[in-house]
């Protein structure tokens, strides 16, 4: 009897483990304006145009205000069982990983294979960026804080939650106390909106971006026709039909296209799919890999390669494996 109970419990635990959707990673990043205003930026000449970029490392090393705000926000998010990725630690990890990759060698002197793309991808990144801007302002002898927090989906570029406002002016409170007050004041509203986004995600599918491109070695374009049961259909339309069949409620938008590329936005992919009778979490890589498999079948027999840009964006490049 005990064995049966134990087996039932372990089966239930397995089911709950496999029934979880992919959790997006979240990271707080100071806004460009904040970094530039505090002198933490890099300016370079980009083909005659002077370009200024934020220097996050310098900001995190020199600015105690932003560290205080991020720390407070991290504490609140951890309390909600949604710990944030730490920007400072991510930057440190990226440079550490880079150094270690260069130094590791095998017994026969082989080093770790790394393409320029792998190097490019080794940066601090997250699925949802919390773009944070705080300013301590003065009005006469009083100080007050302006707080702006936007959650941006790193793949769709959409603002999925936000909260902003100016705090109550005070002549006695220290700036760090005002900053703490601003975080406490806005976080519940912000998390409420983030929760609405997640609820929408579970109800209508995760919104992602899919790009279909062509290798220049491919001997076809999206206008190439293939024989199907419904007559000859162009490759572009075959892909569009597959998207309509596989997106949640057929929701997607072909925002741009030519003979050499198709750009699908607002693609709603299911959160879960069945594999070997179990629920598995779906991400864009799995979704696009299914499209790749569809195109590899007869009558199309098309080779393609999946390139992953993260949890919410993947490319399918047609023409080669």
């Amino acid at each position, binding site marked *: 009897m005990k064995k049966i109970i134990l087996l039932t419990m372990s089966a239930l635990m397995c089911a709950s483990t496999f029934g*979880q959707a992919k959790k997006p990673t979240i990271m707080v990043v100071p806004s460009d304006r904040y970094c530039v205003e505090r002198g933490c930026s890099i300016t370079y000449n980009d083909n005659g145009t002077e370009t200024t970029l934020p220097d996050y490392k310098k900001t995190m090393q020199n600015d105690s205000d932003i560290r205080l705000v991020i720390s407070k926000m991290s504490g609140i998010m951890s309390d909600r069982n949604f710990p944030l990725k730490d920007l400072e630690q991510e930057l440190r990890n990226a440079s550490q990983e880079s150094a270690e990759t260069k130094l590791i060698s095998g017994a026969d002197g082989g080093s770790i294979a790394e393409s320029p793309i792998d190097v490019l991808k080794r940066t601090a990144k997250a699925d949802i960026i919390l773009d944070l801007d705080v300013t301590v302002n003065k009005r006469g002898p009083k100080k007050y804080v302006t707080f702006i927090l936007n959650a941006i989906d790193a793949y769709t570029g959409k603002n999925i939650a936000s909260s902003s406002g100016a705090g*109550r002016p005070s002549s006695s409170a220290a700036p760090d106390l005002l900053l703490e007050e601003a975080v406490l004041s806005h976080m519940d509203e912000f998390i409420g909106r983030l929760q609405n986004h997640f609820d929408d995600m579970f109800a209508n599918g995760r919104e992602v971006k899919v790009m279909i491109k062509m290798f220049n070695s491919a001997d076809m374009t999206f206008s190439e026709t293939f024989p199907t049961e419904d007559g000859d259909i162009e490759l572009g339309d075959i892909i569009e039909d597959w998207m309509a069949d596989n997106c949640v409620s057929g929701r997607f938008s072909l925002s741009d296209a030519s003979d050499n590329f198709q750009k699908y936005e607002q693609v709603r992919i299911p959160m879960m799919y069945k594999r070997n009778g179990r629920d598995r979490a779906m991400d864009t890589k799995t979704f696009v890999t299914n499209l790749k498999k569809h195109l590899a079948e007869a009558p199309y027999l098309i080779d393609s390669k999946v390139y992953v840009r993260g949890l919410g964006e993947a490319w399918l490049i047609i023409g080669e494996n």
Partner: protein
Amino acid sequence: MKKILSLIMLAVIAVCVNAQSKNKVRKIEYNSAYNYEVVSLSVGVDGTKLVKVYGYGRKPEDAVRNAKELGVACALFRGFPAGADGSVATTPAIVKDPSEPAKHQDYFNKFFATGGQYLQYVNASSDGMPTDRVKVNKKTYKVGVTLSIAYDELRKEMERQGIARALNSGF
């Protein structure tokens, strides 16, 4: 003379009917599940909300008790409005699904019973009887009480009971 008397009688009846209907409206409003008179005062310490809630009762003590109950109910089902000067942002309701209260009616009846669990999540932040009180009619006092609501603890309790969704649920 008769005419004058009948006119006076009619006027008196009209006034009485009007007063009665006003009382009826007031009674309905007191008992309404949506009638919260709440003002966000300032940012509370970690995990709490500092609000002023108006309660009604036959005695001022009853009105304070009613205000505490309304304060917790407001955090659960409606959320708190933003502060008047914008210094406090809106606080969302903990229970977002409007069908949840009906589904868990037994739980909430017990939760909001006299001396029930709701008292664990609310504190009057001033000593003695609040001075902000008005006698709205012969039988009713309206009292404004400054309360500290343990919002985070209340949210966690609702998540434990499966009434509210946690931020990480489903992931």
